[in-house]
């Protein structure tokens, strides 16, 4: 789909380019060349070319949507994500009966190559899938400690759909499965350069920290060139369940040993309570016995 579109668009755009190149760049090009004399890397050259032409070449899009019977929290989080990511699109809620592999087709129809899919179970447990469509990989996370922007009342604010910096913990580079997560997150979350909906300034950071075997996500506003930050929101924690080779399918590449499903956790809590109750009952019985016992064994009774 992508390739075809590009080809279609190409002929209509080509005549515009030389115009731009002729009109603007001459004075701008000269000054940086004087400032940076000898070595300019190829990347810098490319960037400068693009910045002069203001071309939007990176056409990745992210689809953000959820399953039916989602909760208000998820809806608000989705709204937050959509306002942060100008390259994101949304879809109608997915029927629960549908197989997850349908999502691949939906993404293709919407020209999206990344997908963030929220799945809600029992109206309480929120899972989120991050996937690269159609080749994979995909990750399933449990969403914990979710606070949306609306409920947080944090004092930070930034331009809507401005580009942001992604700040990862060093550990993401060092461990294999985390490096895969970092790569996928950068591709889904980073706003393409010169995206038409994006604004040309960088005024917030998405922060990804890894502690307690979970990924903690925060969003900060940058003030005065990074001298200080103000949190914007949302806040949430991702606990990895599994990583799959394909998109919503395929063999498992990574299985988190520390993950405990909320169902198991709840049942354990219940069992613990039951044990406590049992102990209390037994304790009470013991007390009763103790109360009775001294009367019988009272040495004064003998006299």
């Amino acid at each position, binding site marked *: 789909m992508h390739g075809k579109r590009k080809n279609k668009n190409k002929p209509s755009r080509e005549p515009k380019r030389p115009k731009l190149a002729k009109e603007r760049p001459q004075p701008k090009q000269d000054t940086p060349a004087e400032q940076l004399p000898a070595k300019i890397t190829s990347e810098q050259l490319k960037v400068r070319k693009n910045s002069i032409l203001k071309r939007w070449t990176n056409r990745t899009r992210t689809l953000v949507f959820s399953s039916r019977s989602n909760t208000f929290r998820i809806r608000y989080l989705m709204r937050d994500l959509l306002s942060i990511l100008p390259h994101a699109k949304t879809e109608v809620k997915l029927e629960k009966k549908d197989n997850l592999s349908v999502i691949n087709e939906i993404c293709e129809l919407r020209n999206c190559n990344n997908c963030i899919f929220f799945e809600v179970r029992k109206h309480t447990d929120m899972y989120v899938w991050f996937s*690269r469509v159609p080749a994979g*990989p995909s990750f399933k996370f449990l969403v914990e400690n979710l606070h949306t922007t609306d409920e947080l009342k944090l004092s930070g604010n930034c331009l809507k759909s401005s*580009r942001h910096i992604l700040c*990862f913990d060093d550990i993401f580079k060092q461990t294999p499965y985390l490096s895969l997560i970092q790569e996928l997150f950068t591709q889904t979350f980073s706003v393409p350069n010169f995206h038409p909906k994006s604004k040309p300034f960088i005024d917030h950071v998405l922060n990804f920290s890894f502690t307690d075997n979970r990924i903690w996500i925060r969003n900060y506003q940058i003030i005065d060139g*990074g001298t200080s930050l103000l949190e914007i929101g949302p806040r949430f924690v991702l606990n990895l369940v599994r990583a799959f080779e394909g998109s919503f399918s395929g063999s498992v590449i990574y299985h988190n040993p520390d993950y405990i499903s909320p169902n198991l956790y709840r049942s354990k809590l219940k069992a613990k309570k039951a044990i406590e109750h049992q102990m209390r009952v037994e304790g009470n019985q013991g007390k009763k016995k103790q109360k009775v016992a001294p009367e019988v064994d009272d040495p004064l009774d003998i006299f």
Partner: protein
Amino acid sequence: MNQADSQDESMDEWEVNSTDSEDVDLREQFLRGDLKSGHLYRQQLTEETPVDYAKTINNISGIKKSLLNLKRGYPEQWIERMAVNVPLIAVNDSEDKDKHSTEIDIHDDFNRELSFYQQAQKGVINAFGKLKSLGIETERPEDYLAEMLKSESHMQRVREKLVMQEKIEEMREKAKKDRENRKKLKAERKMGKSKLKSRRSGAFIGAGDELVEESRDKKRKFEDDTKSPRKKFPIKGKLDRNATTNKRRDWKDRKFGFGGKSGKTRKRNSAQSSADMSGFKSYKNSKPSVKKTKGNLNKRPGKLRRKQIKIRKGRN
């Protein structure tokens, strides 16, 4: 045999409850992908969650393959990604620094958020350096106005909350100051009172106060005799009457007396008054003797009686 069995059991237990360092080794091996499935490694991360590494998967080659595939499908230039890697350094209170300087206490909200904040700040400085070298503008001019992420109404709520917080903080501080002032004043007053008392100890007692003084003495005696717990352990917060500093009260007490009933009612229904028999006159209070004079005066029997008498007489 039995002994050997018990030894084996104890060995098994030891293996299951392996030390922390072994756990860490296992974990590292697992993350590196060196742990082969089929080996049964059991360890206890916490009491409730034994981790069975035989069941977990960490397919390193698969991960590397998909990482390569992923990277191929996205532009390599940093400007498209704008991602930086920065070490996350735990912020801990100075007391705990010796114990875990590398691990974040996730339940300590303030320090946890602070360490995230510092990570983000480092990342921003790092990224801004790169952006500068690429010659890209980051800060927006003040006259560039556009739609913000948070709506004006939301920011209004935030502002209100901030103002409210400030107000609460101010009030709290004010209350604290007031409390301290009151304490100071009280202490000062107490000091003044003790001085007054010492000055008054040799002072005269008014002529009409003898009775009051007597009753006070009695009361004290009574208390001493019974060793009342109240005197031994005076109620906290209740001032000792003898230590008052209220001059007016002192004067009033001296003039009108203190303790017991006041004025007119003092002599009413007292033990003395109830024992007083001076007003008793026996002739007035004793019951008068009953006189049977009426029957004697009327000699004629009643009509019925008379009839009966007549009948009796007639029969006879």
